[in-house]
């Protein structure tokens, strides 16, 4: 049997350089169309809605816009949203760092299960996440009777909103940190410990600075989602006006009542938050890349 070698190195090289040339000589028409389609898609689905939100909110003038935001129901929704975000982001900051630390730096049984559980809130519909809390804390729920007999209100009150938001946004910090910490390994921590540093000190002066940009990134995404969460919160909130409505919920209520300007005024705040998040995210991504650059060993 004879074997003919067709792909001699020379031919392969030739083929590659031909392919490269082709890329560059792609007819400008094709390129134009591809770029045009992408730009059009972005315009219709992203830029246009954003512009519409702001133009609708300001359609009756700035005075009307500001008045809509200063309304007591609006203020209460903004306040509740901020409180909820602060609490759930802080909780997830702590949980996320702890979970990422455990997964990245230790070997233990059930680790794969833990990683899967961390992702759970992402793979479950937010409505289901909300229902879980109804099943736990509702009048017919698991803890319901006990809570009622002790006069504790969780469901249809602020605690349930915070809990549901925390649950839904749990994965952001942990998922951002796990690959980062795994990549960094634990040698620096071991060096610090063997030089006599305590565990806490090692965490603060060695681990934390190494993960700070990733951590901030996770917190940013977590916050954006916490403020914007609709589904889970809608299920547990009870929609009590001026009490348990967050901004996204209020947007829907006002819209359904044909108060378009007020509805879009609140929506414009959320859109603004999204824009700020986007900018901060871009800056952070640059920082994270820079922090990982010069490792030549």
């Amino acid at each position, binding site marked *: 049997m004879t074997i003919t070698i067709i792909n001699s190195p020379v031919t392969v090289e030739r083929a590659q350089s031909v392919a490269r040339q082709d890329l560059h000589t792609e007819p400008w028409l094709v390129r134009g169309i591809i770029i045009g389609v992408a730009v059009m898609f972005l315009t219709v689905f992203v830029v246009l809605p954003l512009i519409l939100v702001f133009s609708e909110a300001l359609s009756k003038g700035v005075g009307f816009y500001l008045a809509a935001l200063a309304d007591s129901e609006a203020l209460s929704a903004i306040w509740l949203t901020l409180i909820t975000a602060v609490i759930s982001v802080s909780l997830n900051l702590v949980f996320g760092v702890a979970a990422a630390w455990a997964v990245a730096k230790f070997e233990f049984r059930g680790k794969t299960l833990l990683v899967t559980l961390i992702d759970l809130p992402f793979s479950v519909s937010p409505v289901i996440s909300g229902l879980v809390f109804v099943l736990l804390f509702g009048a017919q729920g698991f803890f319901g009777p006990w809570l009622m007999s002790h006069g504790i209100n969780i469901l249809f009150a602020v605690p349930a909103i915070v809990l549901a938001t925390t649950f839904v946004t749990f994965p952001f910090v942990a998922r951002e940190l796990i690959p980062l910490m795994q990549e960094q390994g634990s*040698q*620096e921590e*071991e*060096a*610090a*410990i*063997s*030089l*006599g*540093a*305590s565990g806490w*000190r090692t965490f603060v002066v*060695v681990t934390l*600075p*190494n993960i700070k940009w990733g951590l901030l990134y996770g917190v940013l995404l977590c916050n954006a989602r916490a403020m914007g969460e609709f589904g889970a919160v809608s299920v547990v909130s009870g929609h009590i006006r001026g009490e348990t409505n967050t901004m996204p919920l209020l947007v829907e209520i006002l819209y359904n009542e044909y108060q378009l300007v007020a509805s879009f005024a609140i929506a414009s705040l959320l859109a603004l938050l999204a824009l700020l998040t986007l900018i901060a995210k871009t800056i952070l991504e640059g920082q994270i890349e820079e922090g990982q*650059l*010069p*490792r030549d*060993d």
Partner: protein
Amino acid sequence: MTIEVRNIVKQYGAFKALDNVDLRVADGELLALLGPSGSGKTSLLRIIAGLDWPDAGEVSFDGENALARGAGERHVGFVFQHYALFRHMSVFENVAFGLRVQPRAVRKSEAQIRARVKELLDLVQLDWLANRYPSQLSGGQRQRIALARALAIEPRILLLDEPFGALDAKVRKELRQWLRTLHEEIHVTSIFVTHDQEEALEVANRVVVMDKGKIEQIGTPGDVYDNPATAFVHSFIGESIVLPVDVSGGQVKLGHRPLNIDAGGAVGPSKLFVRRHDMQIGPVGEGALEGTVRRVRTFGPIQRADIALSGDDTLVEIDAPRDRPLTAGDAISLQPRRYRIFAGQE
């Protein structure tokens, strides 16, 4: 400070990374731990440093149980294979770290810390790099900073895990010399891990050879080279010609050919080990082995020749002085001047 390691066992699942390791390191000694990758060197070092715990066995420093203390209380300086410098701290802060984290009662003043760091950076000859960050240093510089950082806490023991493993040959050679000199200056009990036999033989007073989680031999560099205790040590340290032989009734046979050499106690299927330069070349008929020269290369004072042994044409590589010129095609005999026979075919 003396280190005593007794019957250490370390298991990962069913796999024994360390299998009953016994070792004593004398005060002020520089000991080399030599073995192929995966032989358990790092595992042993980490247990001594307190970064890992053994499944069985004891570790004591100056007769005092070290396993009762955490890594931070053992005063062991550890130099990692991949440096493990704090990447977000300057070189200065890296070296100062061990001094800054001391308990308040014994912590030095800022001025004292500065003076000490300066002294250490001078010692490793890198004081001009104090304000740089680890990512801005070469591999050799990083490793010297890692060493300065480990020395800052005035460790009672210094453990170096393949410190020069990731560096190129020339830098390694320089650092090896430098480390030797440094050890003569500061005399701290040290264990130096390497998988490079030349490095071990050059740096240390005593060499411990490990394989598969067990210690194969402990001795001076001369000892382990000239009198290898096991077949593994013979083939791992220095290059050897290895031939499968059979010993019966005190007779050593290669295939069907009797070699007329002493079996030295081995019986049954065995291996004959000869250093490349211990093969004496002679005219046909005057040696234990016969063969034909296939190829000759000369470097410096020696010539290296590939010899095809008569019979099954096994190729062996020998080193010979240049005063007896060899040419391809010559028929010659070979007589081992020094050799070892180890029983077993593994």
